[in-house]
């Protein structure tokens, strides 16, 4: 059981690290798809099947397509791939900052008394989830729907505004 978890963890961390360090944007996006699949595998391992399928549908299906389309729409060819002079300095400082954060987090995890009991796998059915969402969490569900609607309208307005015809209808 732990063996499987370690394999999934290595898959997630390796694909994320390689994706964040590659220079080719398309390769980064495809590696991040692998990373999201790994996260879905972790959810399956933990027994949260519904969240795993939601992760596959939303991230692997939708977000990756949106990211790929944005990359293809904003690609500039070879001239854009020039390394800026301060890139190495920023990379070093970013690595230092994230290393410090990682040290703090690992120290906290190591020194926190966590329950070490091998808990039995809980089984939460989709029916229970639906009752939760429609009962105690109904207000949050409605709010998430409102947020998604507003985000969709905002994204369309931001991305679809034409510069030439925007002088009269956008303040």
């Amino acid at each position, binding site marked *: 059981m*732990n063996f499987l*978890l*370690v394999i999934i*963890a290595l898959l*997630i*961390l390796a694909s*994320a*690290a390689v*994706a*964040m360090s590659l220079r080719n*944007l398309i390769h*980064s*996006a495809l590696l*991040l798809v692998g990373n*999201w699949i790994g996260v879905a595998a972790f959810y399956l391992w*933990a027994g*949260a099947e*519904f*969240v795993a399928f*939601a*992760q596959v549908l939303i*991230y692997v299906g939708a*977000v990756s397509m949106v*990211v790929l389309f*944005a*990359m293809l*729409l*904003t690609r*500039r060819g070879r001239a*854009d791939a020039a390394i*800026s002079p301060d*890139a190495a300095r*920023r990379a070093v400082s*970013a690595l230092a*900052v*994230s*290393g410090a*954060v*990682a040290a703090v*987090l*690992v120290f906290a*995890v190591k020194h926190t008394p*966590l*329950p070490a009991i*091998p808990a039995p796998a*809980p089984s939460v059915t989709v029916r*229970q*989830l639906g009752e*939760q969402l429609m009962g105690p969490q109904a207000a*949050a569900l409605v709010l*998430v729907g409102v*947020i*998604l609607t507003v*985000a969709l309208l*905002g*994204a*369309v307005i*931001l*991305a679809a505004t034409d*510069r030439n015809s925007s002088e009269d209808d956008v303040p």
Partner: protein
Amino acid sequence: MSPLQICLLLSSGLFCVGLAGALSRSNSILVLLGVELMLNAANLNFIAFWRFGPAPEAATGIVFVIFSIAVAAAEAAVGLALVIAIYRHQKNIRLQEATRLKG
């Protein structure tokens, strides 16, 4: 090491990889993807604490992750729309050159 500790270390590592990516890359799409990685790390923590917590039958962790994924999807859509809007104004999506608010 207990499985909960491995899960927490995994999500810490994923968070730090996302943080390093978001801080070091100059392409704004990759910065957004770094933020997405950090959100995924938070979701991993929710699921880990739900799975190994004291009351896994309550399913609150799963419900929270569902809401979190929905908000992350909205964030990705708005962020990429902003990237396209910046590209339309400047013909470039490098963060260092996006210094004007009024294009």
